[in-house]
């Protein structure tokens, strides 16, 4: 299984001179479910692009599975870290759903029954069964986005990175994405997701990292990150804790970032 370690990472975009990351230190264990939150422009996407070699550090090191990313080729990194872009149209290009989903595993030299099974599982995980022969551009934007997720899932990389996976999804689409994250993590694979949806974050991830201006300002469980004593830090980057956390704090039942957690905490006195 693949551990990620980032040491003293800084990134300066050559074209603009913008220092998008500054002194990032981070260790993510195999199988962790990690949400990365913060404002647009806080460095979230820049950070995850270092994990699969799309960007190289200006300073510092990135280790993927114990190997310095600099020593790995882009192809080697792509086999370890799958990245799903926010905009599926930057990613989807094949003529059918099946060929799109098979493209990644084919590039990893999978073939025959193994390839077919990987594609079938990924298509079913996002609910696109029956659409195998459909042209991706005949799917709506939200299903095309689920297709982009399936095409990376099919590579069965030890690390899966999702950039804003729930934007444009309806209630069922968000549920699907949540189920995929949990299933991948249950197999011991790591999931890292960038999201602005605090409710999805609180309900789906076991660790929440908050970025502001290229630095990490909070890193903990959802209960820690959304606890009342962290609100000033959250609000300094224009994030609002989920409603359940705000109500829990007002009721004095501790940090309860999910609806289920809040309800359980409110019921606890009844039982005693």
């Amino acid at each position, binding site marked *: 299984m693949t551990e990620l370690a980032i040491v003293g990472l800084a990134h300066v975009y050559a074209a603009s001179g913008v220092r998008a990351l500054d002194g990032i230190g981070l260790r993510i264990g195999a199988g962790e479910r990690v949400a990365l939150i913060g404002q647009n*422009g806080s460095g979230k996407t820049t950070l995850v692009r270092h994990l699969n070699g799309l960007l190289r550090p200006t300073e510092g090191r990135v280790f993927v599975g114990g190997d310095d990313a600099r020593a790995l080729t882009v192809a080697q990194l792509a086999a370890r870290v799958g990245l799903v872009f926010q905009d599926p149209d930057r990613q989807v290009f094949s003529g059918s759903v099946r060929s799109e989903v098979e493209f990644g595993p084919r590039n990893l030299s999978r073939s025959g029954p193994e390839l077919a099974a990987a594609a079938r599982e990924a298509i079913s995980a996002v609910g696109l069964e029956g659409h195998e022969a459909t042209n991706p551009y005949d799917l709506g934007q939200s*299903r095309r986005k689920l297709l982009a997720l399936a095409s990376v899932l099919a590579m069965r990389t030890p690390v899966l990175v999702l950039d804003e996976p729930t934007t444009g*999804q309806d209630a*069922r689409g*968000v549920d699907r994405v949540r189920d995929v994250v949990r299933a991948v993590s249950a197999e011991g694979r790591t999931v890292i997701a960038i999201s602005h949806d605090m409710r999805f974050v609180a309900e789906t991830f076991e660790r929440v990292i908050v970025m502001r201006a290229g630095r990490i300002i909070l890193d903990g469980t959802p209960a820690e990150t959304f606890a009342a004593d962290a609100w000033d830090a959250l609000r300094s980057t224009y994030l609002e804790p989920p*409603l*359940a956390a705000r*109500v829990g704090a007002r009721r004095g039942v501790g940090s309860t970032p999910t609806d289920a957690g809040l309800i359980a905490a*409110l019921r606890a006195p009844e039982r005693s």
Partner: protein
Amino acid sequence: MTLTLRGIGYRHAGASRPALLDIDLDLADGRVVGLAGASEAGKTTLCLVASGLAPRTVGGRIRGTLHLDGEDVDRWPMHRLAERIGIGFQNPATQLSQVAGTVFEEVAFGPMNLGIDRAEVIDRTWEALEAMRIDGLAERDPQRLSGGQQQLLAMAGLLAMRPEHLVLDEPTAQLDPAGTALVADAIGRLARGGTSILIAEQKTDLLADVAGEMIVLAEGRIALRGPVSEVLADPRLDEIGVAPPSAVRLRRAAVAAGLDPALVAERAA
């Protein structure tokens, strides 16, 4: 001033079933109407029809009528409609004029095409850029902005046009909570100025904030309509595939657990 849709049905070219059926809708001065529905329920199609772009620019067959202040606009050319009805597309990159070299020019482009005098165009442009907090990007190339920045830019362009009617298709999809709040403010500002607004959104928390009434589409038909607070609390919303706002879900969870819902109200009653 009212934009009126009556008995609207719509079928995309080559589609096996209609995308919209029997849609009646009134968009009146200063009113904000929310539009929700599961993916592919017809929200984007309704946005295109209400703005006059469908079938004019995308083909397909339409039934029913679209009236502006009582006048049938069926034969109006697109440019004449565009002066009265603004639209913000789901993908803000689609919105860009492709002719402006800077963010400032991009925002100024709309009001300039309306024949508004130069000094006023400049005033409106700065005001819109400041409202969306992108005045610092005025000299940047619109094509080189992030998706979120382009979404704020598209909204600034619409603010500067001050259209009588405005149709917004998921205007906050790529925005963080701070950007979403800016769009909500912009919608309020336009509505107070008399613009009628139809806004399609997955974020029901946002609809609860900005809209007075709303409709919910299911398979191309209006399944629910009414005041926002009533529609968003309707138990059928889940079956339709629309996530209720946080407050509604939390309240339901409390009731299901046998708790007094007042316990989970955001503020003390």
